[in-house]
């Protein structure tokens, strides 16, 4: 039984920093309803690409948005209009949320899985690394906000540089690029630009947080 589209709306921009077209339509969020009758493990879905208009359409999945329904696994799905896609490893029934972008967005989850591969599939270790990344990121964003507010060039540069390094470690390229731009702008005292870049970085962080939350929820803890 194919899943149906149950939601819609405009969401923050995702993965806009690099290789996509110069003017891409804003990404959308759609709900993908996994019906209780669906078999666990594999879910086929249709019509998402068609509904979103002209393609190619690429999709990153944010799972775990309905924990009460038993969703625990995040995965990456890829749709090229108008071909139907496959959601792998669906843990169970519920409502999944898809962040959908047009063109060639940054496929963060893909790269994240690449990092996990480099760690020889040690998912608990991956979970620990990502948890530390999130903790560091929260602290550094606090420092960056303060530094921009105070127009402290050295601190803006330092905090942005740290965020750039952290983002590089987990292959969060859009955030890495935005932080790199902030590092330059801060160092040169281009304050109006640092304000808009901060907003851009906050958006990227918000998107990452949502993806990571789902991803982390799907991995067993090292010391459960």
């Amino acid at each position, binding site marked *: 039984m194919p899943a149906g589209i149950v939601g819609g709306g405009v969401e923050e921009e995702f993965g806009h920093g690099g290789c996509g077209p110069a003017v891409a339509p804003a990404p959308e969020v759609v709900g993908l309803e996994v019906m209780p009758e669906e078999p666990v493990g594999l879910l086929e879905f249709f019509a998402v690409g068609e509904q979103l208009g002209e393609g190619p359409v690429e999709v990153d999945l944010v799972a775990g948005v309905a924990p009460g329904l038993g969703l625990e696994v995040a995965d990456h799905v890829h749709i090229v209009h108008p071909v139907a896609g496959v959601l792998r490893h669906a843990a169970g029934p519920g409502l999944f949320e898809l962040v959908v972008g047009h063109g060639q967005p940054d496929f963060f989850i893909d790269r994240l899985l690449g990092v996990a591969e480099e*760690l*020889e599939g*040690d998912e608990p270790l991956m979970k620990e690394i990502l948890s530390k990344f999130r903790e560091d990121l929260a602290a550094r964003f606090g420092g960056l906000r303060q530094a921009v507010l105070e127009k402290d060039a050295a601190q803006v540069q330092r905090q942005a540089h740290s965020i750039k*390094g952290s983002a590089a*470690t987990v292959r969060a390229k859009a955030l890495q690029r935005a932080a790199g731009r902030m590092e330059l702008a801060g160092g040169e005292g281009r304050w109006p630009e640092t304000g808009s870049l901060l907003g851009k970085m906050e958006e990227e962080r918000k998107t990452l947080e949502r993806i990571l939350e789902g991803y982390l929820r799907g991995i067993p803890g090292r010391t459960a």
Partner: protein
Amino acid sequence: MKILIAEDDSASRLILQISLSPLGETHTVVNGKEAVEAFKMALFTGRPFDLICLDVMMPEMDGREALRQIRQVEKEFGLEGSAETRIIMTTALDDPKTVVDSFYRGGATSYLVKPIRKNSLLEELAKIGLRGKGEGIRFERDPGHEEGFDHR
């Protein structure tokens, strides 16, 4: 092998620690000042580090200054040339000038640009004579980690 990892980014520090633990005893610090202190303590107690991974940009004291101070201490102890500690600078910097300054003028043995990948780390260790070419590393959890300088 005794290894010191100086890195303020928790995730990078953990990856380096996990990667290098199979090769020996790892210690971690979070800034350049702590790195210099740990280096001195190890030297004074007769158990110096064989390898130091030093992040270029860290709080308190950055990696370049730490590198300078470490090389200065070594000089005072008559440790020069092949007797010097192998130091790999790690950096997220895009600025080649900074890297070149650290590498060629600052006395680093080598450098790696983040994200640190297992293969590039292996290659670099082989280049600087700390690992046989083609030898692999399995990621292991804390087999040789010492808490002495661990400021996580």
